[in-house]
């Protein structure tokens, strides 16, 4: 029997999208002095709202507010009390979770199923986890009373707007810092709802400041003299530039950049689950994930049969309206990103790889792309080396475990890798041999605030989550110096 699922749209009413959103500085929402920017709903390509942005003077104000709050309020406060504020914020996120999920889906384009079941709960958990560290810093192995760094300047990307805000704000505050944070220009809304939650939690003004705007605002922020610590998540290109700009300033940096994760399937893998892992690895969040499993390395002995299975499974993916609860793959975040992806796909075809795309129908309006696979790719092709950041998988084969390691490591990136084998010693051995910050054995895209996340090589340095993530926000320079 043919069975069409009826549309199951989540109502957008709960989001109560305002006509205009304002930056959050020193505890209040106030007009910025920069140019207004429109934010678009990628699922429909229609305007969603308008955001007032900041200029340099506003950034000065924000950094100053953060400094004042740090000197006069936050650094004097006991860890236990800081923790209680963070617990409040965690609970606030959980209470307004449905609203946040809808706002995030409307602004980013990712499916409501994902914001509801992953992004928002993970953000709440991130605050909850870090809240508990605030009065336990002496147990990190960094000395009896680790000190915070001061004011952190943070810039986050558009792929997980709320979650990235949580990943930045929670550890910084738990460690005793105050923050000035800039969301991506295409996804400014969910963090501004978070700002309401933060204000409702009575967080002292100036502890968290949110400055809105585009790349220039981010650049001014990270270069600002009043910032003690910079945390950036975004493209490797911009990360390199930030590192260059901050050279010689002594300012602490952590960078979480791009990736070209290898998902490695051995001939003894639990095949059906490996298929799911690949699907998850490259189509979760429309492939717009730094740690996406964007290179499939499948053992040659099973490659043909396995690729067939994979294609059949991809055909069952539901691509469409992100607000429909049954949508598996939503919209690409912006027209610009869609163009970047299709340009690389053209390069792949030109270089001789074979393109296969799902036959799923796509909505007429909005920025959509069919889940796609390139087969017959070779390591030298651009689609095998460059980060596509879209729902496009590049497939290659390998013969032996050593060859898989060699191919997987053969990249300037080193953020993530997946290994699929039923053989425990091989799973452990591959984990030891792969040069990547996150190794997923028989799974993919698992995140937890207790488990550190971050890259090797040009995927960045520094970790988020776990004790090592907190260490990034503490003064750990314990070497004795003469002057």
């Amino acid at each position, binding site marked *: 029997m043919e069975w069409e699922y009826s549309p199951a749209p989540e109502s957008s009413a709960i989001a109560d999208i305002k006509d205009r959103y304002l930056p959050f500085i020193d505890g209040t929402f106030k007009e910025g002095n920069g140019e207004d920017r429109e934010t678009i709903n990628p699922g429909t390509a229609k305007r969603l709202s308008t955001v007032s942005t900041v200029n340099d003077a506003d950034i000065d104000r924000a950094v100053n507010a953060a400094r004042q709050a740090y000197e006069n309020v936050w650094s004097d406060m006991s860890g236990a009390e800081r923790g209680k504020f963070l617990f409040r914020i965690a609970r606030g996120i959980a209470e307004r979770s449905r609203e946040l999920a809808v706002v995030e889906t409307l602004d980013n384009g990712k499916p409501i199923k994902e914001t509801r079941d992953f992004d928002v709960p993970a953000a709440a958990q991130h605050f909850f986890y870090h809240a508990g560290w605030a009065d336990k810093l002496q147990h990190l192995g960094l000395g009896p009373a680790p000190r915070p760094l001061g004011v952190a300047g943070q810039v986050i990307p558009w792929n997980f707007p709320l979650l990235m805000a949580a990943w930045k704000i929670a550890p910084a505050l738990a460690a005793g810092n105050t923050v000035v944070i800039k969301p991506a220009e295409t996804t400014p809304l969910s963090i501004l709802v978070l700002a309401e939650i933060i204000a409702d939690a009575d967080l002292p003004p100036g502890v968290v400041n949110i400055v809105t705007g585009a790349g220039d605002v981010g650049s001014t922020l990270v270069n600002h003299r009043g910032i003690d610590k910079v945390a950036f998540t975004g493209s490797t290109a911009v990360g390199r530039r930030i590192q260059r700009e901050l050279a010689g300033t002594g300012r602490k940096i952590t960078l979480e950049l791009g990736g070209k994760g290898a998902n490695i399937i051995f001939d003894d893998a639990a095949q059906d689950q490996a298929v799911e892992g690949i699907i998850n690895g490259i189509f979760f969040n429309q492939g717009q994930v730094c740690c996406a499993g964007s290179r499939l390395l499948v053992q040659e002995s099973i490659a043909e049969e396995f690729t067939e299975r994979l294609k059949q499974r991809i055909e069952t993916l539901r691509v469409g309206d992100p607000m429909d609860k049954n949508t598996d793959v939503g919209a690409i975040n912006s027209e610009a990103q869609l163009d970047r992806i299709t340009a690389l796909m053209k390069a792949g075809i030109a270089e001789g790889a074979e393109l296969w795309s799902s036959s799923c129908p796509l909505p007429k309006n909005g920025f959509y792309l069919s889940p796609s696979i390139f087969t017959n790719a070779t390591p030298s092709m651009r689609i095998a080396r460059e980060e596509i950041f879209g729902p496009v998988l590049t497939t290659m084969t390998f013969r032996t475990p050593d060859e898989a390691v060699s191919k997987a490591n053969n990249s300037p990136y080193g953020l993530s890798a997946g290994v699929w084998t039923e053989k425990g*010693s*091989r799973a452990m051995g591959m984990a030891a041999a792969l040069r990547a910050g996150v190794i997923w054995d028989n799974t993919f895209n698992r995140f937890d605030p207790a488990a550190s996340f971050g890259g090797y090589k040009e995927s960045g340095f520094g970790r988020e989550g776990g004790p090592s993530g907190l260490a990034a926000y503490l003064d750990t320079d314990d070497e004795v110096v003469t002057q």
Partner: protein
Amino acid sequence: MSHLAVTKTYKLFIGGAFPRSESGRTYQARDDDGNFMANAALASRKDLRDAVVAARKGYAAWSKATAYNRGQVIYRLAEMLESRKAEFVELIMISTGASTKTATAEVNASIDRLVHYAGWTDKLAAVLGSSNPVSSPYFSYSTPEATGVVGILAPTGTPLLGLISVIAPVITGGNACVAVAAEHDPCVAITFAEVIATSDVPAGVINILTGKITELAPHLAGHADVNALDLTGADAELRTSLEQSASETVKRVYVPKGVPDFTAAPGIARLRAFLEIKTVWHPTGALSLSGGTAY
């Protein structure tokens, strides 16, 4: 017309419910001036037996919960206690004769104590566990796991803060417990049991008995299905005999160094006392033919 109060019957807290003692006995709880407060249940060894059964069941559910979930439940205890702050301040004042200021400080500290432990559940493995750099081709890790069912003798003194300070570290690690409340403050203990009952704590994870420590403690110490003991509430002489009894089943026994000051920040000794460290080895490396000389 003034309102005639409906007096509360204070029962035991076992398996998430409030049963009377199977012995039918009670004893008189008196306030600081010696006035009658309530007839509290006088727990028997059979109540204790039932509580241990409930705790074992509760442990099964609690140890399966994620650390995050346990943290959320303990945080909920703090929320519920906070919302009943005024009631507890008054109860402590009546029960112990404390001033408003002192009683308020005790309740605030109790709430904050719960918040503190709520934040420990998902950090124990990072702080107390390790990845072990063994000198052979194995991936080895050590991780803390809950001991199981812990018998607790609650301290005298601060009836709420003391009770919470001995129970919270035990359940934080995933254990279940049977706590014998301070004999002279059963009302505070059982009112706290009401907070437990409304906080999504799985049935049996915390059980509270009111009665005579001297009568109940030996049965707790000798019970073969109790894995560990916290003897804080026992005096020196009783402690010795309990420790002897505990040796029959090689229980883990925690005895504080002196008289604990529960107003101070807790360390981690009480957390560590009720955790087992499990070490796991798994072969790693040697992806292909290697010659096998690294063993």
